[in-house]
């Protein structure tokens, strides 16, 4: 076995391939496109131009590349008053945990290309949702460690927002699992088939899930923890350079992760393509369909920046607890009714 074979087997070892190469690299590209789309869409709706002159033919897409390079090579300023180790560690752990759900998300029904052994895939939805609840803790940690009034207020706001969205996110993404009677993502996607997608069968849970994702990744109507006019950048005020990029990129990574989960749970996953044997039919095409659906979800959430203002914290909490949580429970009830009627 030569060195090349070893390297290739290491790269194509499913957890590494799915988590680092596809997960991190792909999510980075998706995050860049999402940021670019957010800026361009807001500019279009407000009848401006947005990023343009960096590459007029690509509509300013290179602008985002330049931004990323700038963040990568900028000096990292660490103020003397911060709590050093939590300040450094929080963005890194937050980013790592943001991309960790890729490691349990199957992108095809062919067991050869699952990231985990089939026995472990039984509870993949549970594990993925459990991991998505972890990164906000590190946002609060970074806000606290930076030891600055703005960051502490931002962290406290983030804590309030977590309280309101976490239950909604988990319950609304559980509604399909309740209807199907399985916590295996592959089973849920197979149960949906070509037409019985949960966006049609359970629109209440879908709406609640979209709202929860918007809240959790501070998309626009709920961009409360890092609202620029009120608290400078919220928990990320003292960060600069690559650490700031990790912090801000983490939100887009989580948006993409939730987009993947929504596209698998509600939008029929890899259907209309039925995965077959081999790399192309078994992995490349189905995963492409899933990722395209996820990107559509991500871009739709990013588009909200163009049309909404920002809610106050109490308005967001009020909406979450009094409107969206009953909506989620109604979605669960609907799923129970569907399970009772035996649609699946």
């Amino acid at each position: 076995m030569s060195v090349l074979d070893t390297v290739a087997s290491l790269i194509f070892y499913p957890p590494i391939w799915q988590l680092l190469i596809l997960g991190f690299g792909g999510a980075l590209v998706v995050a860049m496109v999402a940021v670019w789309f957010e800026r361009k869409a807001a500019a279009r709706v407000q009848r401006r131009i947005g990023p343009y002159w960096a590459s007029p033919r690509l509509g300013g897409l290179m602008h985002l590349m330049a931004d990323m390079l700038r963040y990568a090579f900028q000096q990292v300023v660490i103020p003397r008053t911060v709590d050093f180790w939590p300040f450094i560690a929080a963005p890194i752990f937050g980013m790592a945990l943001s991309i960790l759900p890729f490691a349990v998300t199957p992108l095809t029904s062919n067991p050869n290309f699952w990231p985990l052994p089939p026995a472990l895939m039984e509870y993949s939805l549970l594990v993925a949702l459990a991991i998505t609840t972890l990164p906000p803790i590190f946002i609060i940690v970074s806000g606290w460690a930076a030891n600055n009034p703005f960051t502490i207020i931002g962290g406290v706001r983030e804590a309030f927002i977590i309280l309101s969205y976490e239950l909604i996110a988990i319950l609304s993404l559980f509604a399909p699992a309740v209807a199907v009677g399985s916590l295996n993502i592959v089973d849920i996607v197979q149960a949906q088939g070509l037409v019985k997608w949960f966006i049609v069968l359970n629109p209440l849970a879908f709406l609640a899930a979209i709202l929860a994702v918007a809240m959790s990744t501070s998309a626009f109507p709920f961009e409360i923890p890092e609202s620029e006019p009120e608290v400078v950048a919220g928990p990320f005020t003292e960060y600069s350079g690559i650490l700031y990029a990790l912090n801000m990129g983490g939100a887009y990574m989580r948006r993409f992760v939730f987009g993947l989960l929504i596209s698998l749970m509600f939008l029929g996953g890899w259907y209309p393509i039925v995965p077959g044997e081999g790399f192309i039919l078994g992995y490349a095409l189905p995963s492409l369909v899933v990722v395209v659906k996820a990107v559509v979800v991500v871009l739709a959430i990013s588009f909200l920046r163009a049309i909404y203002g920002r809610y106050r914290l109490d308005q967001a909490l009020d909406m979450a607890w009094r409107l969206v949580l009953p909506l989620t429970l109604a979605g669960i009830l609907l799923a129970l009714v569907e399970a009772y009627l035996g649609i699946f």
Partner: protein
Amino acid sequence: MPPKVAVKPLPKRGGLLAGVSDNLAALMIGIKYFLNPKRFSIYYPKEYPELRKGYRGFIILNKQKCISCAACARICPSAAMKMIRVPVPHPKEPEKTVMKQFPVINYQRCIFCGYCVDICPTEALYHVNYHDIVYENLAEMFWDLDTFQKEPEYPTAEEGIPVRLMIHEEYGLLKVPAREKQG
């Protein structure tokens, strides 16, 4: 007795249906502008705003009309304009020369307020309708008497097309080409 406080009734909060329809209306407006933006931003070097006559751009001297009153130099709030003494031929005896004062301008200091043009009794100073010119060094921004009499070159007009913003009933502002296309 204190004045009676008038209590205004709070505006009625819409119900759930009103909230849903309002959000949908906002989404529809967003999608409408997303599909048909009708941008009014000006792609600056490719397009440039054509400014009207009377815009306070660069100031040019017409030396023949100047009567050396120095009103422009006195009114200048940023002390950009100064009078210099220049020998000119005597009006009646051409072989003699006399010293006459003329204004020169320092565009490092000029704020384009146009007071000098307003106060000039013989209209010897006038504006051109552009002011976006780049100089490579500060020394070029001191204009001597010869430069002050020539209108500066305007490279933007050679590269870009002039546009104009007009008020539109539906869209508010609308960007239109300032002139008809030639040819």
